[in-house]
């Protein structure tokens, strides 16, 4: 059959639906999942049962009520649960815009999760016995310096928000070291990730959030009005969640610098700009990259992850410790940075993520990184053109401007025409084997939002399949809105009766809490 005739819509798809019990329901008293090593007879004869050394008040009196399940059933249970999950290995990660769900190459995973040279390394080993690990850290730092133009990096933070928090901590330490205690405010923008507002708040700053102007850019005049001698820094994304690059970014930076504030560039989504635009040229002082997005490490059902923090030379003393250094022969760990903010995570962060980043950059080099960026933007512009033609879709802001790696779309018109909103479409999506999409962070400034990012991993056919699915759902909405509203039909589970649980009576975050509320357990 000719390729053109192959249908892209998987309308015969059905997700695995195992009707899987909660693991506690599978318990058979006496069953064992695994046997654990026991002390030798000689040890037992010398020290007794060991546990009697614990004073009576601190000895476990009642064994934990864990389930008792044989190994095959435990394995099967979790296999079932994995089959009821739409990871990017089995679906189109185009759905999760702002998350850069690119392909995570298996060769990286196999090295990071199986090679004893990382899996069996203890972080407190003598640095001389982990030269390979430190080499990876050191080299990834050099690569990221080049990609951003910054002068030093820390790979310690355990995620993107954690990196932004680290940057807020560095900004705080910098002003304090200069004896400038007036700087109590951080300015961010509404289309920057929520962590650009939440983490400076956690670090003790007052946060000012700028709304977009009618073009979708952060309001520059409002920012100038907000800047003062109290401003410690600005923390912004560019392009923001809308995918619109702000061409006046330098003016924001200049205005902030003019009042003595630092400028932190949230480049969690730098994928469209590798080798094309850097924080340095836009005069930023701090930056962060999400290695689990742009640099291909997988998202792991929400981690492990790494937020790499980069700074200019004058901020290097404040980076977390230890720093990996190289004298031309040996890699060492240096804790001697008295002005450092200290640590944000134990040990050195997530070495497995750093290793995957190393491999991805080494496999692509300068040309490959740029090719990834170009293809991600090319894909997005192709995709946006096609999506814009789907009945019911609106694309707010910046009409006629080219977007970079993602777009925040709106089903506002579909809602007006049919009563079908973005949450309805989102549920129907999984009936075609496609992961739920990312709507928007809160608040929903764009009505009925959805955010898609067809990064470089997806070929034209993948994109066309996605487009066809949205066309189909739009068609269904206009023909039979109720049908869409009752979706999903073919997912691992149906609509929950309560997708947002705010009533204390209904809260059950553990099995025991559920059982107690149902009167099944005291």
């Amino acid at each position, binding site marked *: 059959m000719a390729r053109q005739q192959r249908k892209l819509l998987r309308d015969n798809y059905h997700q695995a639906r195992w009707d899987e019990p*909660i693991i506690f329901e599978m318990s058979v008293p006496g069953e064992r999942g*695994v046997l*654990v*090593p026991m002390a*030798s007879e000689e040890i037992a004869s*010398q*020290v007794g*049962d*060991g546990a009697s050394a614990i004073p009576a008040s601190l000895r476990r*009196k009642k064994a934990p009520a*864990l389930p008792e399940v044989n190994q095959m059933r435990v394995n099967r249970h979790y296999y*079932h*649960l994995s089959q009821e999950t*739409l*990871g*990017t*290995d089995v679906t189109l990660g185009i759905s999760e815009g702002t998350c850069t769900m690119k392909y*995570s190459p298996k060769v990286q995973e196999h*090295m990071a999760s199986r090679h004893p*040279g*990382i899996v*069996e*390394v*203890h*972080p407190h080993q003598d640095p001389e016995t982990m030269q390979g690990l430190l080499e990876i850290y050191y080299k990834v730092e050099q690569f990221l310096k080049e*990609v951003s133009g910054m002068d030093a990096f820390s790979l310690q933070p*355990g995620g*993107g928000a954690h990196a932004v928090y680290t940057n807020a901590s560095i900004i705080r330490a910098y002003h304090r070291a200069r004896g400038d205690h007036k700087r109590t405010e951080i300015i961010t923008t509404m289309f920057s990730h*929520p962590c650009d507002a*939440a983490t400076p708040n956690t*670090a003790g700053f007052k946060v000012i959030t700028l709304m977009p102007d009618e073009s979708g850019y952060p309001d520059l005049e409002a920012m100038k009005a907000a800047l003062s001698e109290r401003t*410690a820094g600005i923390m912004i994304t560019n392009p923001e969640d809308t995918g619109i690059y702000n*061409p006046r970014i330098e003016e924001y930076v200049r205005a902030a610098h003019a009042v003595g504030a630092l400028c932190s560039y949230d480049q969690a989504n730098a994928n469209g700009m590798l*080798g094309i*635009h850097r924080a340095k040229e836009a005069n930023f002082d701090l930056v962060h990259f999400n290695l689990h997005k742009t640099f291909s490490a997988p998202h*792991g059902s*929400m981690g492990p992850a790494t937020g790499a923090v980069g700074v200019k030379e004058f901020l290097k003393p404040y980076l977390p410790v230890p720093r990996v250094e190289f004298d031309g022969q040996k890699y060492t760990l240096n804790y001697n940075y008295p002005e450092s903010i200290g640590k944000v*995570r*134990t*040990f050195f*962060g997530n070495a497995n993520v*750093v290793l995957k980043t190393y491999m991805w950059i*080494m496999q692509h*080099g*300068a040309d490959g990184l740029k090719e990834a960026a170009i*293809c991600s933007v090319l894909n997005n512009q*192709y995709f946006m053109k096609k999506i814009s033609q789907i009945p019911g879709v609106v694309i707010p802001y910046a009409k006629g401007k080219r977007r970079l790696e993602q777009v925040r779309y709106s089903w506002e018109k579909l809602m007006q025409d049919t009563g079908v909103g973005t949450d309805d479409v989102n549920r129907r*999506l999984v009936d075609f084997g496609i992961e739920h999409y990312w709507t928007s962070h*809160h608040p929903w400034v764009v009505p009925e939002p959805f955010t898609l990012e067809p990064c470089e*991993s997806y070929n034209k056919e993948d994109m066309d399949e996605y487009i066809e699915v949205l066309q189909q759902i739009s068609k269904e909405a206009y023909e039979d809105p109720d049908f869409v509203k009752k979706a*999903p039909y073919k997912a*691992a589970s*149906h609509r*929950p009766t309560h*997708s947002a649980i705010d009533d204390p009576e209904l809260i*059950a*975050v*553990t099995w*025991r*809490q559920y059982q107690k509320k149902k009167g099944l357990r005291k």
Partner: protein
Amino acid sequence: MPKKTIVYPYIPNSVPEVKAELMKEVGVTDPMDLYEEIPDHLRFKEELKLPEPILDEYSIRRHTDEILKKNKTADEYLCFLGAGCAPHFVPAVCDEINGRGEFLTAYVGDSMGDHGKWQALFEYCSLMGELLDMDILSIPMYDGGQAASSSLRMANRINNRKKVLLPATMNPEIFMVVKNYLNSVPQPEIEIVQIKFDPNTGLMDLNDLKNNMSNDVCAVFIENPSYLGFIETQAEEIGKIARQAGAEFIVYTDPISLGVMEAPANYGATITCGDYHPLGLHLGAGGCQGGFIATHDDMKYISEFKDLMFGLTDTIQEGEWGFGEVLYDRTSYGSRDKGKEFTGTSTGLWAITAGVYLSLMGPKGMQEVGTTIMQNSQYAAKKLSAIPGVKIQLSSPFFKEFVVNFDMTGKTVAEINKKLLEFKIFGGKDLSHDFPQFGQSALYCVTEIHQQKDIDKLAYALQGVISC
């Protein structure tokens, strides 16, 4: 010479014909035209200075293997290092499940298409809840350092007091994380006081605790078992002192101890926290840590958790489990800077793994592993203390780790550990920098993975190292 066109396996549209077709579709003739919104002077015109790429998969594998082989590993060496990252037995099913691509590559999908992920994380919370004998957990945090830090911030929000009391024997790495996390602008808002300890036992100095206790104390925080391995036998009393003053009693615990040690909730902890790394995760150069916080079922606590919570509910299909977001507006995803601290991508895959571990172990497995650790570590302490010049620093009972003092050997821990490498042994963590009052001491970690012959080999090697 023009550059050779490369089709990258992970960039399918790098096929020149496809790329040209897409470019035509979007109306550009030069790829740089895609970037017309980026002003010319803000574009990077040079070529990134990166190494020549290693394009094929075999060669990148070979190259990475050669680098990683420079590391000595706990596979090949006997590892007696712990200090927050102890070597434990990892059942094969744990690796099997966290290697499942669906979990590995999932992210923020909703509870219908990602039903399995939601259930697995709900089960992680549920299984941990049984181990900790507490009802409430959120999905996980970065590590134990974050869990300790957020526990203290939760306590601060609950009672609005500004002083926390921490043990001076606390894990120094976690202390550094906490110190930064309690910092604020323009000055630290929450005062940290470190409570003295008895140098012979390691136990908290209750007089110093009482002297620092007042109605402005937000929380008393202890580790049990402690960083230095000793069991804080006065835990119940410390908890009483804290609660009488209206402070929260936070206990940082090692979850693998809880088959034999009492759950902190049962000796008065109002908040329990820690790192679940011991539950089915590898050393991973410190990259397999994950934090947890647990409390009782009380809205006063529930509403102060900072991370997402997945609640069990029904679906429109009779008899089917479903999941929903609990109190989403608590979080910074829901409320930006008005949320509790901040949330974000943390350690979901490792939490799923910890759930698998607890499902496999069951109550009996947890009891047995705790017992083996107690026995093996006591045997090791006994064996080492028989070596002339070596003594066990603290007299308290301990779990898994203990402080070994080498002052009488005339050698430093650094010298001893260097020599132990020749025997293919990673000696205990050198404490001489963080705890100078213990002289030349090291923190030795002995778990269920250490067989008698391993411990005997350590004793033999140490004897040799010390006597030469």
